[in-house]
């Protein structure tokens, strides 16, 4: 992978935050750029559902998506601690953290990660989610990388605000509800595509995303039209 420059990422993010951008797509892109920029294995992002829980929103890889979901399911892990305390959580060596998260830690090690950090997504006094950084080498997520990761988490927060500010003067409640339901619609669309084309959900998401990029369509609009049957994906190139 070519070395990616910080400036390139910031320019790309700024370019993305224009009228009509898709929030979930933006957050996925951000998790991918975060991996490239920080030179780490994976990232995942969880947002509050405003009912007291975190929900999966975006991840750079399928394995990380599963690990993020696992944290939510077993109700433990760095992302949850970070969300609840509002403070960054950094674990240089996961092998020493089995007592802290007896269920999450073995699952993370099994996935191939040796270190993890969780960075809060903060809006004014409120914590709206957390960004998780994972890497396969112990102690590789240095304080510098965490600072940069925090800057990217802040961009994600701005993206969430921006998406709505463009449309109407509105509240955080609406912004987060939009993100939550966009995510649900994408899951529903993944099911439709998986069933039609005999794919697994991860492949179905890739398919959806490739078509949305290639045809310059908003990810969640395309997903919605696939679920309500008003649109089908063009045949995949084989």
């Amino acid at each position, binding site marked *: 992978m070519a070395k990616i420059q910080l400036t390139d990422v910031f320019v790309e993010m700024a370019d993305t935050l224009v009228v009509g951008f898709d929030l979930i797509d933006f957050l996925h892109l951000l998790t991918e750029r975060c991996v490239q920029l920080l030179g780490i294995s994976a990232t995942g992002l969880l947002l509050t559902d405003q009912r007291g829980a975190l929900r999966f929103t975006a991840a750079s890889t399928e394995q990380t998506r599963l690990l993020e979901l696992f944290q939510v399911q077993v109700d433990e892990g760095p992302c949850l601690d970070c969300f609840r305390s509002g403070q960054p959580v950094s674990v240089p060596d996961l092998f020493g953290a089995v007592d802290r998260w007896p269920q999450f830690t073995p699952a993370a090690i099994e996935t191939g990660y040796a270190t993890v950090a969780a960075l809060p997504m903060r809006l004014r006094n409120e914590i709206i989610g957390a960004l998780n950084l994972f890497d396969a080498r112990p102690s590789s997520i240095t304080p510098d990388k965490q600072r940069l990761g925090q800057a990217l988490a802040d961009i994600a927060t701005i993206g969430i605000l921006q998406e709505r500010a463009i449309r109407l003067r509105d509240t955080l409640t609406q912004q987060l509800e939009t993100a939550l339901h966009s995510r649900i619609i994408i899951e529903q669309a993944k099911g439709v595509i998986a069933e*039609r084309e005999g794919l697994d959900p991860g492949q179905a998401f890739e398919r959806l995303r490739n078509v949305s990029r290639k045809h310059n369509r908003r990810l969640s609009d395309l997903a919605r039209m696939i679920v309500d049957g008003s649109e089908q994906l063009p045949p995949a190139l084989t």
Partner: protein
Amino acid sequence: MSPDRALPLWSMVLEQAAGTPVTVGHVCAAVVRVTGVDGSSVALTTSSPIREAVYASDETAARVEELTLTLGEGPSIDALRLGEPVLSADMAGTVARSRWPLFASEAVAVGVQAVFALPLRIGVIHLGVLTTYRRRSGDLIRRQVSDGLALADILCLLLLDGTDPAVDTPLPEADDAEEVRYPEVHQATGMITVQLGVTAEIAFARLRAFAFAHNRRLRDVARDVVARRLRFEPDSDDDYACGR
């Protein structure tokens, strides 16, 4: 929803029901209690563009529904259209008056100073809108919003019971609203729309009915569907699904 909050909310709904089957009215009564409003109502989106009010806690709530229907504007119209909560804390203020010139002044005339509308939806499934009103202006606090959203989730499940006449869907259980948090549930819903050639609403109702009939957790059944251990067939008689 966090389990520690889901349970007290559900207990509150059951308390309202006092041993009878849970209805929209019982959930709405719980909404009034936890969000500090004065009344609530529910309108459903029907296949026609006309909203159908199915419940109002009192005359003022009914009046708010009626105004919305007659004037064709107001927070609950916007909540339905945008699919997002519309929380209007000051009906007499300039923001509300410019956004809904007719509705805002009529609402104030009947003594309503704040209107909070929460859409009843699960992804693409749009069922209707929960509207609450308060005689005093002012924002809801965070806890009231989150409890309102959680109760709106329970309402969604309750309303879905009547979605598919072919299926006797179960009433929601305490942990049902929490199960909806799992992505497999929505992926399975999408898969079932293709397997049965039905809408997402009906697919979701079938999934829940199957879980209920087999006394299994929704997310476990959904996982079986996603892993292709379970498939729903259009014409099977009793189960609406068969393993393979």
